[in-house]
């Protein structure tokens, strides 16, 4: 019965349509770069020392803020639900619970935080698949409990 339930949940998770999400990666960040630098330095230009402007509004800070936005979107709970379904959310959370609290292997934890960053640099449009994978692993961990 337990395995049948988990199997049904796995079917729900796998068959969930992937969400249509806007492209958000290094390319989009680079597109935003000149526009943001122009607008931010223009505002600063009126009465700010050049050093202050350079410190706050440079390519590095703007690129990291743009890429940060893309990266953090991956961990949006609504994105998880849209990727792995509502039934996938609980095993997804269970996966993180097990990885962090019960079998805290630092390479695993590190990998989980690094993997979502990979699509920002390499063309890998279906980042949402990762949530399905995490949820399925969560189910397997639950089954083996």
């Amino acid at each position, binding site marked *: 019965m337990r395995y049948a339930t988990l199997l049904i949940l796995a079917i729900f998770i796998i068959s969930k349509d992937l969400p249509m999400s806007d492209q958000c990666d290094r390319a989009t960040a680079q597109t935003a770069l000149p526009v943001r630098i122009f607008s931010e330095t223009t505002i600063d230009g009126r009465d700010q020392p050049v050093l202050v402007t350079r410190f706050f509004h440079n390519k590095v*800070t703007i690129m990291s803020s743009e890429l940060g936005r893309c990266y953090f979107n991956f961990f949006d709970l*609504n994105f998880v639900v849209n990727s792995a379904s509502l039934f996938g959310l609980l095993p997804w959370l269970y996966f993180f619970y097990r990885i962090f*609290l019960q079998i805290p292997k630092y390479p695993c934890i590190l990998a989980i935080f690094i993997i979502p960053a990979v699509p920002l640099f390499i063309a890998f449009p279906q980042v949402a698949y990762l949530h399905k994978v995490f949820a399925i692993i969560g189910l397997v961990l639950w089954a083996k409990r």
Partner: protein
Amino acid sequence: MNKTLLIIIILLAAFLRLYKLGSVPPSLYWDEASLGYNAYSILITARDEHGRFLPGTNFAAFGDYKPPGYIYATVPAIAAFGLNEFAIRFPSAFFGTLTVLLTYFLAKKLFEKESIALLATFFLAISPWHLQFSRGAFEANLGLFFSLLGIYLFLKFATEKAIYILPSALSFLAAMYTFTGQRLFVPFILIVLAWQFRQQILKNIKSVSAAILISAVLFWPLFIFVTQTIEGKLRFNEVTIFKDLEPIDRSNRYRERDDFSWYSDITHNRRFLYAREYLIHYFDAFEPSFLFTKGDANPRLSVQEVGELYYLDLFLILAGIYFLIAQKHKGAFLILGWLLVSPLGPATARETPHALRMIHILPTFQLLAAFGLVSLYQIIRLKKLFLVTCFLFLVAQFLFYLHIYYFHWPRIWSNQWQYGYKQLVYQINNLYDDADHIVVTKALGRPYIYFLLYRQVDPRDYLKTAKIVRDQFFFIDVNGFDKFIFTGSPADERPPGKTIYITEGASLPAGSQLLSTINQLDGKVVFRISTITN
């Protein structure tokens, strides 16, 4: 040493909340103007702007029936500093600073460790979320102070003396009389507290019963107002997702497509669709772009370029949650419960995530971050490097936040704060005596309150000539008072004599002569002042 550090942090918190308080945010938003004028009205007449004697449960104001807490708290500030932006925002800044201090005592009670308490206090002192609301006349910020005080006193009741239950209950009541969002938070946090401290409650059942009885008596008028009057339900009905008919429509369409089969009645049941909507709104509260990169989508509620929390907080909060659970810390249930129940109320609203309606989640993030930092420090090898890296990272983002807050945000978003009304009223004051009528556009919303506020009109004089109307949604509007006529289309008004017209943007009434323009901080024209003699 610890005392000195605490004093320094509180002074920093006070400085960050009071510095340029009257000019950043760049002008008074209409709700701030309304709170200020009603407080002024109470001060000089003991009645609100509509002439109601010392309202207890609500101030009608624009027909939004504001809770009374903030208005009464503003009365002494206006008495001391006069009717101006600083005085209207002062209670928020003052109680915001006290909230920072309260966080110290709360963290010390929960963790019994000075370092965690000081760090949590420091994190809240520089929090973009808390700073944003401590620097505007936001009822929510005062509400946060009261609910936090309620939680702290409840902890004192559970760990020290039973007598603290009464002030705790009164603080929670004050929170509900101050901000509507607290009415959907207090019951949930009380459940969390009651569950965690059920043994202490049972042990002191007499004191608890007495506190419940007194609170029930004091809460009764508010309860009647909120549940039994149209005005009381108005605000909730206006914002809630449960009054949205779209899920019902969607359910009907799906069921029709399935020929109204029995299984369709179950799978496409409207209750499921509403539950799904609610969950989406609940999860929004933990949206990473809201928390860490962009903040609230409303430019009045965040600076738009920094999240509600700092990047560093993400790792510290995760670490804090991890260590709380891993160490089975006694404060884990309360802090995590608090974190999880906070979005339950705001999730019923259409606009989510909403930093204002969810402000009562503070300072859970700061408590977790402080606990996470101290716990990581204990296990990490390169302690000094770790501390220096964290400090530099935090300071860099904090300075960036301040830069955006003081230099970019007011210029880009001054229109969101109804910038221009103050400048307009001051210009009109010079023209007032020569004019027979002054026609003002309503395009920017509720102009009457700014004329009352900046001209410091006596509410008794205002009520003698006020043309107050109420629309079908129960909102109250003013079409004129004294020489002023407020209208959606100024060009259609042709009163006799010399008339001053205040129009929005490029439009000017036919035949009028332009006198001057008023610009927003980004340079765009917001008002044009012109004149005609009919």
